[in-house]
């Protein structure tokens, strides 16, 4: 399917993503603080709630704190700005440069984001994990043998986020003001991924609806594996559905990009 030279090209994009973000490394010190603040808000909320009940929907307080904290640690890895970057490229007309490169734009953006995420893993995710486990009573993985499955699931979550962001970012070609859409997408993913609250807390009709969407595999899926709330079959199912969604979103992104660039108008540049 791919020749080695092609793979090397995309690896180069990943390297560029990694190096670009190096310039902003100072931001990652405050990034640890930002993520810790987010965890703290929900820590206090859940603590207040569990003062009156020992278990809700199969989660006790320590499950929930671990869920929230690990959720944000994982988010610090899979997060990327493809949507925003694409929007800026369109607004500044630089998108023309992407078109003259003999590469697949979607793969290029995802590769760059992958480089960034490698950087985030060491500069943000691990420090955040250390800080959070010092401040909050976190549980270790329920079953160490499932740890590789958890990591695989997190990597797949990265692809899901990257591909969704590419789809949304591509909308910038057709819409002039896309920033509101990006903000709405941000909140949509926060809630539908299960990052803020486990999917099992949603009303039944919403859960059934979300079974037809990829979002719960971004946070809820990997986190249940970590907490040991999925048996072997459940783990395999999660990973398989994640893979399936990666495929579907890649295809959608490909088609959406191809039809969008035909509408592209760049003035000079």
């Amino acid at each position, binding site marked *: 399917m791919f020749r080695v030279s092609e793979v090397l090209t995309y690896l180069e994009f990943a390297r560029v993503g990694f190096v670009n973000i190096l310039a*902003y490394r100072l931001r990652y010190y405050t990034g640890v603080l*930002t993520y810790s603040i987010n965890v703290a808000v929900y820590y*206090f909320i859940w603590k207040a709630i569990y003062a009156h009940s020992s278990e809700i929907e199969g989660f006790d307080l320590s499950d929930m704190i671990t869920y929230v904290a690990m959720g944000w640690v994982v988010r610090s890895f899979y997060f990327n700005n493809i949507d925003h970057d694409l929007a800026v490229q369109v607004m500044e007309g630089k998108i023309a440069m992407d078109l003259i490169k003999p590469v697949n734009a979607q793969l290029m953006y995802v590769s760059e984001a992958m480089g960034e995420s490698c950087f985030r893993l060491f500069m943000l995710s691990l420090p955040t994990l250390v800080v959070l486990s010092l401040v909050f009573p976190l549980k270790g993985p329920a079953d160490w043998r499932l740890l590789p499955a958890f990591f695989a699931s997190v990597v797949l979550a990265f692809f899901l986020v990257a591909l969704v962001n590419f789809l949304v970012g591509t909308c910038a070609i057709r819409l002039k003001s896309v920033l509101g859409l990006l903000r709405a997408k941000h909140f949509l993913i926060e809630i539908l991924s299960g990052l803020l609250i486990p999917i099992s807390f949603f009303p039944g009709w919403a859960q059934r609806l979300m079974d037809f969407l990829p979002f719960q595999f971004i946070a809820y899926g990997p986190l249940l594996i970590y907490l040991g709330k999925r048996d072997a079959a459940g783990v395999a199912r999660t990973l398989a559905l994640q893979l399936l969604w990666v495929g579907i979103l890649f295809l959608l992104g490909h088609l959406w990009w191809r039809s969008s660039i035909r509408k592209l108008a760049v003035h000079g540049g």
Partner: protein
Amino acid sequence: MRKHLTLLSDYFTQYLKVRLSYKGDLVIAVLTSFLATVLALAFVLVLFSKIPTLQGWSFEEVLFLYGFSLLPLGLFNVVSLNLYDFGNLYIMEGKFDRILLRPVNSLFQVIFEEFRLESLQEVATGIAIVAYCSVKLNLSWRVQDLVLASSVVLCGSLIYLAVFLSLTSVSFWLEDRVGLVPPVFNLLTFGRYPISIYNGFVQFLLSWIIPFAFASFYPSARFLRRRDFDLYFYLIPVVAGLFFTLSTLVWRQGVRNYQSTGS
């Protein structure tokens, strides 16, 4: 004062002309902004489908907190855009030189050169939520309550302005790369819930260091007839005045320290 008002209306007319020339774009911006506001509420909605109260605060009360917090924030967001972009736009790209050449207060120019009209949607949504909860909770609003609410909302906007202006002023000394805004911005979420659920440190932080509680929680508590926080309520104008004055001093010091990039 008169000159500034004329200038403000000129700035705004100019902005409006640009925005209205892309009407479809404005509609999309308002709709997506509204969607974002509603989605941010989803957590509370889902949460309360499983629990009856949050430490003695009912669903409608917590909803009220969120709705009321949108009022000062929405007003602030109408003018906040340039504060976030200041480091990049004005310092790095050198736009600030132009500002200094004009015989008008520099802060005035930076704040009012750009607006975000769609953020008024947050104010409208906030009013709708507060009205809904007031009916559900049988809260009556007399004329003097409305006047009082409007004044504390303005004080709240001033508090947000003060906090983010101080952070913006940091760009005069440090490169924007440090990214001080995101952690503080995320502290805003704390303001949406009853302050009593937090530990002493967080309560102190939100009251006296980064006084977001004075912008949203303390005013809401008063209108929800939660009398324990009355003392804080009367301090709102003091805190707003004090922090705003301090932030303009920091800004002025920053301007004095400004060295153009020369671009």
